[in-house]
């Protein structure tokens, strides 16, 4: 059929021990946005990697414009005008934006770079598709959103017309997601065909024309988005209905657990303070959410709260004791637990076993050591208990090397460790980033359970859905200050978005004026 630009027919791809793609057929129409949906590990990235030439399928064929093609490496893909934005950006941090865009297809004379023409082309493209970038900025200095625009420009620069986006929205702020959606629409209108992987159903509903669902490596089906709904999609994906509402009991907040007074934290990136004097309280039995666009001081505040960075002034009190100057370990002992945003960097020692990771905070406790000697038997028993309670799935139980576990299970291990400490205060930063909705449901319910048992929770999230669903109180941070305080039931996503974008004050003042 002429209609399809790309046909992936009966693709099967195995890795040792697992069939990542099992007889999958996917057809992409010209000019459509085609969503790909599936749980973590369902095989979406694998399928796309096959299309992009990173993996070779064990069987199956790929057709471009009806003709069978062989794609054995990214160069082949590029020759067929197929481009890909990877789940984890593939950008060289110390290169400039321009260098990153031209890498691999450098304009040159006798091997010497001729960047001038490249620059002109990039500038023209970025204007045409309103993808604003700074060609000479280093990638490490630009925002995640701009990095994504660089990735898109990389494809456009290569004149690709089949564009693969692997979980592009997982790392973006709501505003950036909006922008991306409109860019994608623009590209599709230009006649480019887009494959779009996401875990977020509302994004699919908003932007996609059709959606293919995978589950455990198998094709479940392809549906027209206009003729389906979130519930149906999620059922196809997980195999059971998913509740989108987080169930919470009504409880009256108790005593103050965390008291933050005028905390100021210097920034590592620039001379200004990252956190410019914030004050708030978190009480027993409530989930307080710090919402805000990335880079507005939330991370720095959490660093100061947990003791990783020093604050320059202010006071933090935990259950009545001043911890402003306490060490990380002291704070942990006094009852702070926290789930870091980057689980690989901060959450786990990937080369340790699961058991060793599960006692990363507790190995000094009497139960696990005697006279400085670790009691490995107790450590294993403890790990086994957590594995059972929190349903952490891994190959060899306590002895699994953490590196070999899937992202979702790694996250569960961290949660298990932190919640099992029975902390006075649980600090969770982006706890569900990149996870599928099944896993998210699970994690949300664990967090809520913690609150229901009368503990305090401080949640930092960029996802407005999560913010609205889970929290009892919302504090929006903007440029290092708290721009406003809301109750989820009395506000809207739109209002929050405005405050996060810094328009809150204006909105309020015009509102007062009118």
């Amino acid at each position, binding site marked *: 059929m002429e209609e399809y630009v790309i046909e992936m027919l009966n693709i099967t791809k195995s890795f*040792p*021990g*697992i069939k990542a793609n099992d007889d999958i057929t996917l057809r992409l129409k010209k000019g459509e946005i085609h969503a790909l949906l599936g749980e973590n590990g369902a095989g979406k990235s694998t399928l796309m990697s096959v299309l992009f030439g990173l993996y070779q399928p064990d069987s199956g064929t790929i057709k471009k414009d009806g003709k069978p093609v062989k794609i054995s490496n990214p160069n082949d893909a590029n020759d067929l005008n197929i481009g890909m934005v990877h789940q984890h950006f593939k950008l060289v941090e110390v290169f400039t934006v321009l260098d990153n865009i031209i890498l691999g297809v450098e304009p040159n004379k006798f091997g010497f770079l001729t960047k001038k023409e490249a620059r002109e082309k990039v500038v023209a493209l970025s204007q045409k598709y309103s993808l604003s970038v700074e060609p000479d900025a280093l990638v490490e200095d630009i925002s995640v959103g701009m990095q994504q625009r660089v990735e898109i420009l990389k494809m456009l620069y290569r004149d690709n017309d089949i564009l693969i986006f692997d979980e592009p929205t997982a790392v973006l702020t709501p505003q950036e997601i909006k922008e991306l959606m409109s860019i994608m629409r623009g590209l599709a209108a230009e006649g480019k065909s887009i494959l779009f992987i996401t875990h977020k159903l509302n994004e699919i509903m908003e932007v996609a024309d059709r959606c293919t669902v995978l589950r455990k490596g198998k094709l479940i089906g392809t549906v027209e988005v206009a003729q389906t709904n979130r519930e149906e999609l999620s059922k196809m994906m997980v195999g059971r209905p998913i509740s989108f509402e987080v169930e919470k009991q009504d409880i009256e907040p108790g005593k103050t657990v965390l008291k933050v007074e005028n905390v100021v934290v210097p920034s590592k990136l620039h001379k200004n303070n990252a956190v410019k004097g914030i004050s708030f309280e978190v009480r027993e039995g409530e989930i307080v959410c710090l919402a805000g666009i990335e880079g507005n001081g939330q991370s720095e505040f959490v660093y100061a709260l*947990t003791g*990783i960075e020093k604050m320059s002034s202010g006071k933090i009190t935990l259950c009545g004791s001043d911890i402003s100057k306490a*060490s*990380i*370990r002291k*704070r*942990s002992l006094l009852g702070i637990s*926290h789930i*870091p945003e980057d689980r690989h*960097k*901060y*959450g*786990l*020692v*990937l*080369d*340790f*076993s699961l058991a*060793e990771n599960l006692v*990363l*905070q507790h*190995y*000094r406790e009497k139960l696990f*050591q005697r006279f*400085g*000697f*670790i009691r*490995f038997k107790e450590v294993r028993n403890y790990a086994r208990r957590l594995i059972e309670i929190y349903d952490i799935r*891994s*190959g*060899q*139980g306590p*002895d699994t*090397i953490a*590196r*070999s*576990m*899937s992202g979702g299970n790694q996250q569960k291990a961290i949660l298990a460790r932190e919640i099992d400490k029975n902390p006075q205060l649980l600090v969770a930063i982006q706890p569900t980033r990149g996870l599928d909705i099944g896993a998210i449901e699970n994690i949300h319910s664990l967090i809520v359970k913690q609150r229901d048992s009368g503990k305090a929770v401080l949640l930092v999230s960029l996802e407005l859905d999560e913010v609205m669903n889970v929290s009892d109180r919302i504090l929006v941070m903007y440029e290092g200050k708290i721009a406003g305080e809301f109750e989820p039931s009395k506000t809207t996503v739109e209002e929050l978005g405005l405050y996060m974008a810094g328009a809150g004050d204006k909105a309020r003042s015009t509102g007062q004026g009118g």
Partner: protein
Amino acid sequence: MKKVREFLGRRSVASFLSSLISIIIGLVFGYLLLLAFDSEKALFGIKQILFAGVSSPAKIAKVLYQAAPLVLTGLSVGFAFKTGLFNIGASGQYMVGACFALYTGIVLRQPWYVAMTAAMLGGAIWGLIPGLCKALFNVNEVITSIMFNWIGLFAVNLFFSNTPKILANYYGSANANRTANLAAANARAIIPTLGLDKLLKSPFMNISILIAVAIAVVAFIVLNRTTFGYELKACGFNKNASIYAGINAKRNTALSMTIAGCLAGIGGGIYYLSGTVQYTIEKVLLSMGFNGIPVALLAQSNPIATIFSATFISYIQVGGDAMQPEFAKEIIDIIISVIIYLSAVSLLVKGLITRLAERKKEAAPSPGQDTAQTPDDSKQEATS
């Protein structure tokens, strides 16, 4: 549970086997080399390499004598490896350790165990400074260790040149370029033999190998059994996560280098307090510290395996000496480097074997990476 144990057992077996295969290939290569040089005498040469080390009690003594400092410098390098650091400064730590030991023994007239403690202290200082530079200023420990090797070399020379009482000529010798003969200066500073020298009929024999083994065992226990070792390894594998977990990573980095320094320092002490050698004013870095690197690599940084790898290397070195004058003893170094090279490659083979075996068994995901520093080989060995 049994299955798991079986598997773990298999893993350490695999790592042992991979080393063994490397060694065998290395020796075969060595034999071919001998054949190339002198086909008539090649058989004699390889016999010497293989058996000279046990040909007489005195040769056994020599093997152990050379192995003792190698165990310690190997431990030094390996300990740092385990905690994510590359201590290329064992040479400097070794020299400073020797200097402290000799000063304490000769000038301060202390018994050997005091001198040995001083050696440890000297090495510790020479490890601490690069450790601090790394912890406080984030200066690459490889470059600081290299600098401290040379600073150590010259500092020791300077110190000896300005400490007349430590030099041989103060005790009657005509030689102002080496430290005093311990027998002449202070016999109490010589490591005791407990009659072993009589037993093996060799002046090289004393209890230094026993000390080295004891220290290796302690290092093993510290690394794999204690909270301290747990912290050190955690920092080595993932500094950020360790900091998040409340571990003082800076302190641990400095401590780890200090301990590595201690170990290399004891190595210097153990060699120069043997009563056989005198420290000579040197212009080039002593190779003993660098030899710790292959020892540690062959042992895959496991302290217990270090004992064996050091003994093995010393063993074939003794064999190499016995090949003279027919063959150059440097052929042994060629063999050792081939073995190290192969073991780098065979670690991969080992990883592959275990992964495959495990895949079949559990049909489940497996360790993603198999590097030289598989963190818990050793621990699992002990528990299974």
